[in-house]
């Protein structure tokens, strides 16, 4: 088990009353598996991912990474060294080329990165399907699918075991969507990563090893 959500409570305070997004939520995630968190819009699945990626903190409960509370690790440090995050709108830095975008987290992480960072970055991009000629382009000169591949390469750049993705295919066509899902499956099954994808698509959910359904703040699991 690499990641565990323990008795998570996350709510919005509305005067005297509380609107729960997650209530007493528990879940465990293992390396080498591809997980999906399925739910309708507003079901709280993005909030759950934000908690797992330490972009937000719960009111109560804990998230354990390799048996250690991420609060103790430190949210910034956890994001820096232990998790790769992929967003629906790619969130790449427009002033930088694809390879430079991949190089950014390498300079931020405290993880050990091979000396020749640039070669590693090119290789990563190539593995994800971005050839060198495209890797040297500014990211806003690339298509949506290519930008999302760059975002995946960036998430892998720090050699983390945990990949979290928020609706990663939301802006892509069906063909591109499948290509991205195939990459995630490959990362989980061939490279022993723990990949957790938030989605509202049943098709994607069906391809995962385990799906969590989130409805009215309650999480239920289906193998």
């Amino acid at each position, binding site marked *: 088990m690499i990641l565990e959500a323990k008795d998570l409570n996350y709510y919005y305070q509305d005067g005297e009353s509380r609107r729960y997004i997650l209530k007493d939520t528990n879940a465990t995630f293992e390396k080498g598996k591809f997980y999906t968190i399925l739910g309708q819009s507003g079901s709280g699945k*993005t909030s759950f991912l934000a908690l797992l990626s330490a*972009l937000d903190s719960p009111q109560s409960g804990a998230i354990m990474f390799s048996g250690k509370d991420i609060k103790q690790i430190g949210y910034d440090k956890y*994001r820096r060294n232990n998790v790769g995050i992929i967003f629906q709108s790619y*969130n790449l830095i427009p002033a*930088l080329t694809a390879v430079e975008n991949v190089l*950014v*987290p390498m*300079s*931020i992480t405290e993880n050990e990165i091979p000396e020749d960072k640039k070669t590693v970055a090119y290789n990563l991009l190539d593995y994800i399907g971005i050839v060198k000629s495209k890797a040297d382009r500014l990211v806003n000169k690339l298509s949506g699918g290519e930008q999302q591949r760059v975002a995946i390469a960036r998430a892998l750049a720090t050699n983390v075991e945990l990949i979290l993705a928020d609706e990663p295919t939301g802006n892509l066509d069906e063909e591109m969507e499948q290509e991205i899902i195939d990459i995630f499956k490959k990362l989980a099954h061939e490279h022993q990563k723990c990949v957790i994808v938030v989605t509202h698509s049943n098709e994607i959910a069906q391809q995962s090893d385990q799906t969590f359904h989130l409805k009215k703040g309650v999480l239920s699991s289906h193998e």
Partner: protein
Amino acid sequence: MNFFKRAILSITRKKGKSIILLAVIFILGNLISGAISIQQATGNVETTIKEKLGTAATVELDYEAIEKMDESEMMELEIEELDLELIKQIGELSYVKYYDFSTSTYLGSETIKSYQGEGMEEEEVMYEGPSMDFMLKGINHAPIIDLEEEKGKLVDGRVFTPEEVENGAPVAVISKKLAELNNLHVGDNFTLINEVYSFDESNGEDKLVTSRDLVLEVIGLFEPKAVKNDAEESEEGMYDFMDIEYQNTIYVANEVVSSEMRYNMEEYMKVDEEMAAAMGEEEITDYYTPLFVLNKPEDTEAFEEEVQPLLPQYYKVTNASDQYDSIAAPVESMSKLSGYVLLVAVIATILIIGLVVLLFLRDRKRELGIYLSLGERRSRVVGQIVIEVMIVAVIGISLSLFSGNLLAQSVSDTMIDAEAEKQNSEEEMYYSELQTDVTTDDVLESYKVELDPGYVGIFYLVGLLTILVSTIIPLIYIVRLNPKKIMM
């Protein structure tokens, strides 16, 4: 791809924004640079001129305070004389390098001609009444303070001995020009005449009552030190007047002057019974003007503080450097103006650069959120922005260093021309004892806007510090950023 490299890439890849920021910094930098240039130049003028003015001080009547008195106060006004013992007491203070007290009078001569300026040797000046061509200046400090303070220099012979001063020996030090004009040499004698006149009220004319000769031996010749040969300047009446008066000055012991003044007064009272009755048995007293030369300019204030309580009412200490305010008015006004410009420029820079940086940061909100979501430390994100702004600032400030200096030069030239014109049409004021040949023209001449290391250092310090402060304010924005709200 560390934060420094990211900053460099951000500057080079976002050229438009970098140029806008550069232009704003350049324009504001010019204002700061110009203002500092003028400040530096005026500061240098103050040092130079105060050095030129020297460390002399005197004690004299506070005419300004007396002028402010109303009629009733004026009626009751009784001015105490400056006691010779007090002058000596002040002279013994530790701040005083040496001191002198002097009394002077004017005498004429039938045997020697007075100096009337260059090219005027052949022209005979004809006038009625007492002849007062020569200023007999008494001294008590044997080496002659004017020569020690380099108002003039001894070019032949010697100065007085303490015995000659004490005994009032009939010996004199005269100017070289006066000696040449009258073919006098060291060791020669010349004769002055002390004429006593009475005023005839019936015809309004002076009437010669009696006279006596004063024979003096020339023991030394002096030459004024700061001789200005500039033809244009010698056309100006004031300088000529001062030079002529100094060339016709005859240094003698105070006792010689006192003796001549006493003779003149006693003889006059013989014919003016009214005045003699008013004087009664009162003794004729000598009036001395003291001159104290201080060790260093910094002693001026302490000397003034210590001396002022010792002085009789209505007297005050006047320092040579006090004249700075009156002769350096144009430069002082520029200094004041540039001070305001500097203050306004710094405030404007903080506000404008602050706003520009804040606008740029809002535009880059997503980029900053990405760094934070990747776990980058906020201090490094802040560092990246500071580096970006400071690199552009160094370029902008360096460019404005030169252009601002040029701007200051042209602004100063225009202002100085205007002030010089104004100055020429205004009446100039001079102090009696501490009269100086340092004029407003000297002040304006010593005003130079230059690119010296001091100016460069101060400008970089003020410029970069101002921009740093203006960048720090919008950086609070980064510290408060929530990556979740930006990214998801």
